[in-house]
């Protein structure tokens, strides 16, 4: 039972150490997908917009981590 609990904690830690980081990364992908579908983002621009969103998520995560 304890092993299962530790396993669940490990899986949780893998994807949600910092909920803000997870949320901003998911938001970056979600907004890109929505923008593409609504023709607000050109397919050729999507890689660069997504990479920019990921960089923004990393920056927010690091700044929040440093403030704790």
């Amino acid at each position: 039972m304890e092993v299962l609990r530790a396993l669940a904690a490990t899986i949780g830690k893998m994807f949600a150490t910092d909920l803000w980081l997870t949320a901003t990364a998911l938001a970056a992908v979600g907004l890109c997908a929505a923008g593409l579908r609504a023709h607000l983002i050109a397919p050729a621009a999507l890689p660069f917009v997504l990479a920019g969103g990921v960089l923004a998520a990393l920056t927010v995560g690091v700044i929040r981590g440093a403030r704790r």
Partner: protein
Amino acid sequence: MLSLTQTAPVALAALIASSVEVVEAFTIVLAVSVVRGVRPAAFGTAAALVVLSAVVAAFGPLLASVPVHGLQLAVGVLLLVFGLGWLRKAVLRAAGVLALHDEDQAFAKQTRALRDQSDARETAADWLAGTVAFKAVLLEGTEVVFIVLAVGARPGLLVPAAVGAAAACVMVLGLGLAVRRPLAKIPENSLKFLVGGMLTAFGTFWCCEGLGTPWPGGDWAILGLVALYLAAGLALSAALRQAAAKAA
């Protein structure tokens, strides 16, 4: 037929990422074998490897039945979140905000805990030690399995990813058997920095491919993304160190 430019980055990413996890598992298995002998350490490790192999055997073929774009998007998002977590932690450690992971300290802590438990009956102590080894290999191995399945989530790439992870196990075990000490000299945070950048790059790449948008430059774009994220990570850690020095 896949080219070397497609398989080599996947195998390399799996090798480097897995080696970080294998080093951490090895430290605990070594502590078990030093305190309670090789038998419980080997038994716990073997049992965990059987469970992990069963997981790969169950999920590997299942992944092949998922549509490629859907799989790439799902795996891309998971890799992105996982990789960003590693990169963020590595940046904070490099900037001195978080303490570095110390294998010597982890070994001493585990050895102390096992010695305390050794007051119990011999068989119970062996059982407990075996469980500790089992847990360490299972938990660290879960991350290795995820990395292998995730970076290998494109037709034909699972084998190079598995080969990379297996090479990491052989390398760490070989080094560990040679020195018979925790592998504390391995620059773990630098490796985590690199792996965080690589996993985030793979995640970004596959999210776009999953959304049906190819990258300019094809697979070579992964290298550009790795460089971009590592440069950003280094710049962020330098900025944090500078801010801390100014505040002091």
